[in-house]
Structure formats: C-alpha cells, structure tokens
C-alpha cells in the first residue's frame, strides 16, 4: 500500500530552507560566537537527511547531483591548501592572516583565512555524513 505523505513532503520543503539558513548562520558565526564548520556542516547534512526521509534516495540524488566523496576531497584540499599557503611566504606552517577589508555591499568586514580552513571542515563534514548515510541506505 502506498501511503500519502503530502504533509510531510510539503513541510520538509519549507523546513529544509530554514535549516540550511540556520546552518549557514552557524557556520559564519563560528569566529565570535558558538558555531563553526563542524556544527554547520552537520546541520546542513541534517537538512538533506530530512529530504531523504520525506522523499527517496533517487529523488534527492536528482536534486543534489553531488558525488559526496569528491566533496570530501575538495574540503581536504581547502584545509590543506590554507595551511600550506604559509609555505609560500616562508612562515611557519598553518600561520593565518587576517585584516579588515571594505567589500562593495557588506562594507567594512574583518576577514580571516581561518574561514577558508573552516570551509574545508564544512565540506568534509557534509561529505562524510552524506557518504555514510547514502552508502548504508543503498546497500541491501
């Protein structure tokens, strides 16, 4: 018997965007407030898992045609690249740089290379979580 989950699917679609926005907020808050790449990534994959619950794997893969293992690789490259950038300037490995930059829309913003590293963490966390869930979900 096929159940009708129209309520679940409709609310998931709305709630998905709220969760993703909250995850991005957590990610950007990381430097001055609780949050950061790890919890942001986990929350983002939580949003995708909600879609997996409401729909099926094929539909979600169609919506997000991402190879999550490649995502892990990209995240690692971000993290290693940020850390190894200091090799170019002959300063100790992993030394970060920061400063205030005036951006066109946002105005005066303080930027830090730790943010790039955190992006790596964010991508790796999403990649690993989704790989685990999809692999277990697909195996018979």
């Amino acid at each position, binding site marked *: 018997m096929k159940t009708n989950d129209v309520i679940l699917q409709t609310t998931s679609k709305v709630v998905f965007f709220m969760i993703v926005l909250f995850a991005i907020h957590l990610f950007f808050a990381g430097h001055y407030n609780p949050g950061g790449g790890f919890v942001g990534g986990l929350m983002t994959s939580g949003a995708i898992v909600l879609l997996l619950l409401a729909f099926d794997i094929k539909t979600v893969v169609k919506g997000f045609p991402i190879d999550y293992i490649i995502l892990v690789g990209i995240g690692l490259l971000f993290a290693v690249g940020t850390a190894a950038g200091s*090799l170019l300037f002959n*300063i*100790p*490995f*992993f030394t970060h740089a920061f400063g205030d930059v005036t951006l066109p829309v946002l105005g005066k913003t303080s930027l830090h290379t730790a943010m790039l590293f955190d992006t790596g963490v964010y991508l790796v966390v999403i990649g690993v979580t989704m790989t685990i869930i999809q692999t277990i979900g697909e195996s018979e």
Partner: protein
Amino acid sequence: MINLLILPLLIPLVTATVLIFLTKSVGAQRVISVISTIGTLAASIVLLLTVKNEGIQTINVSSWEAPFGITLVSDMLSALLVTTTSLITLCVILYSFRSIGASRERFYYYSVIQFLLVGVNGAFTTGDIFNMFVFFEVMLMASYVLIVIGGTKIQLRESIKYILVNVISSALFVIAVALLYSVVGSLNMADISQRIAEIGQLPILTVIAVLFLIVFGLKGAIFPLYFWLPGSYYAPPVPVLALFGSLLTKVGVYSILRSYSLFFYHDQAFTHELLGILAIITVIIGGIGAIAYWDVKKIIIYNIIVAVGVLVYGISVATEESYKGMVFYTIHDMIIKAALFLLIGVMIKITGTSDLRKMGGLMKKYPLLGWTFLIAAFALAGIPPLSGFVGKLLIVRGGFAEGEYVSSLIVLLSSLVVLYSVIKIFMNGFWKAPKEYPGEDSQPVTFLWVPGAILVLTSILYGVGAEVMYPIISQATDALVNPTIYIDAVLKE
C-alpha cells in the same frame, strides 16, 4: 626553509587527497603515489642531513610560541625513523603494483597508504602529547581500512578484534593524557618534562607512567598486551602486513621510548624495572610462538614480538649504550621485517600456500630469491657483518654493564631461537625436493622480488656501514640520555 620538517607529513597528505579524485584510473594512482613517496623520501633525507648539520629542528605551527601552540620537533631519532618509514612505504607501494589486485586498488588503497604514512611520520615528528594521540588515530584509522579492504571473511573477523582493542587503547590514551594534564597542566612534551623535573616524580606520575605503558604496550604488542597481534596481522594481504609489521608496532615502541626517556625517568627503580620484566617475558613468548608454527606468516609475526621485547629491554636498561643499541636495532628491525614479509609474500605467491610443509625446493628455480631470503634471515638473527648485530651487541653490553646478567643472556639466547625459526623457513621452503605448484609460472616473481631485495640491500649497507652510522646514532641518543637538549631546543632558552 623553516617548514622543511613538515614536508614528510604534508607531501603524503596532499597526495592522499589528490588520489581521492583519481579512483577510476589505477595507472594514474600508481604513478602519483610512487612519485610523491619518492618526494617524501627525498624530503626526509634532506631533513636528516639538516638535523645532522644544524641540530634539532623545531617548528611552532601557526607561529604560536612553544608551550602554547603545537610544536613539531625533529631530532635525529625522529628524522631517522621518518626516513626509514618513507623508504619502507615506497618499497611496499612498488610491491603492491603486481600483488594487491585491481579491486582493492580501485577502492582507495593507495590513498589510504598515504594517510598511514601521514600518521606514522606525524607520530614520529610531533612534540605535543595530544597531537601524538591525533596522529595515532590517523594511523589507526588508515590501518583499520587496510586491514578490512577486500572484505574476505577472515579479514572481517580479525578487523573486529583489531578495532575493538585499538578503540579501547585509544580511550585509555585519552584518559592518560587527561590525568597527565590535570597534574602538570601542559601538553607540550618539552614543557611537561620540565615541569615533572620541577615537582619530582610524584606517585600519581608513576601511575600515569604505567598507564602510558599499558596504552603504548597495546599498540606495540608487549606482554601481556600482545594477544591481538598474531591473529589480526595474519588477516590482511602481504604488502599491508609488511607495512603493519614494520611500522605500527614500532610507533608504540617509539612512544614508550619517548615518554620514558623524556617524562618518567625520575623513579626508574619502579617503572624501568617493570619495563624490563615485561620485555623479557615478551621475548620469551615471541620466541615460543616463532618456533611453534609451521606457517611462514605466523613465524615472522611472532618474530615481531621478539623484536619488540628486545627493543623494550633496551629502553628499560636506560643507559647511553643500551639506548644506542635500541635505536640502531629499531631501524634495522623496521627494514628487515618489511623485507622478510615481502620475501615470504613472494614464496606464498609462488606456492599458493603459507604452510611450510607444503613448500619445498624453491632454490632450484629461484636461487636469487633464496639467497636474498637467507641474507635477510641472517641479518634478522644478528650475524656479524649484517645489521642486526651491532644493535643487539650494544643492548646486551648495556645490560651486562648494569649487572642484569640473566635478562641479557635471555636476549642473547633469543637470537638462536630467531635464527632457528627463520632457518626453518629456509630449509623447508628452499631446500628439499622440488615440487610442482599450479600456476607458478604466471606469477611476477622478479618484479615482486625487487622491493624486498632493495630493502635487504639497504640492510646490508646499514650493517656494513655501522661505522658511518655510529655518530648519527649517537646524536640520536643524546636527547634521550639528556632531556635538557630536547627541552632547550623546543623552549629556546
């Protein structure tokens, strides 16, 4: 360049990441992993020479000053071990080309090997106790994958045991670090050493010392914590086994050496006595195992335990001479164990079995393999011009100088047992009447023999060139005998 000592960690890390993108093309994976491992080896040799000329190299990661940030320290000991590790990994990768099989190669095999290299090199290089835990985990995670990759029944069974034991020992490691941190309030190894020297070794620190011994003993397989090793190491294919047998237990031994020479050297009557007793029982247990089996893999696996016992005995004597012997023997043992595993791997490929009683007469058709194995066997037992001799000689002389006659004699006699066990392989496998093995002609014997032969050659050069190596080994033991050298290099006082 101030970042030189990060290169043996960074190159394999970047390679491992890049290899994730290339799983479909086995050829590209092979080329990249060989080139980058040669790069790692070159970087570690440059590092070795730099340490030799300019003394201990340190780097404060992220530019935070010594006790507050993570410091990576490369003294002679760690530079030597990093170089040896890189060489062994290179040979194992070469060996894997024709032996591991495409199904494993497509499942991130080379990537995981690079991660293992990151973990081992990192554990040898770090100067921070919690960072050492992290590198242990990097190494162990990679080893979990390597032990289970391929998914045969025996691998699944043994990997469950292996993971269970290591998860427990890792939890103990965290508890031990937490206890140590609550007592001394620092994680930087040089700073910990300095603070322990200030307050003296309180009873709680001796308890922590024993806790560390349990943790590192589980990783390094000393008695009575060796029980998981013979079964777990029997499961994975030969190249993985060679990596495990030569690298993983030595990381445990290195950690015991580091912590017992840098932190817990104030109450030697208790801690080092305990270490000595456990070491001798380890040697005996390993010896019994090595004689008992008729399975080539099992015999060499029990020889790992004998070697761990000898090394830990060298630590327990704790004189300059025994440390020298111990360092000498560690490097010899890493190289020769990898060589032996690769050579018996060729034997298993030819005969299709690891049971000695089903082998025989290989000498007639494969004389080069036979003689290489014989040299490796003699080196393992420590017959003079070869590399096992000097290390054991120094360890035993150190023992006699301290008046520990019985235990030193046991270490000496263990050589006979080791010799008997490997000569048993030689006599039963290479002598006797030749037999017919189905499918032996299709095996790439010469190709597989070369990496083992490279390692045996290195071992011969290492043994014959002991005179050249001696000052380098002395430099490595300086920081062990006199921790202030290490502390001054890190804290720059």
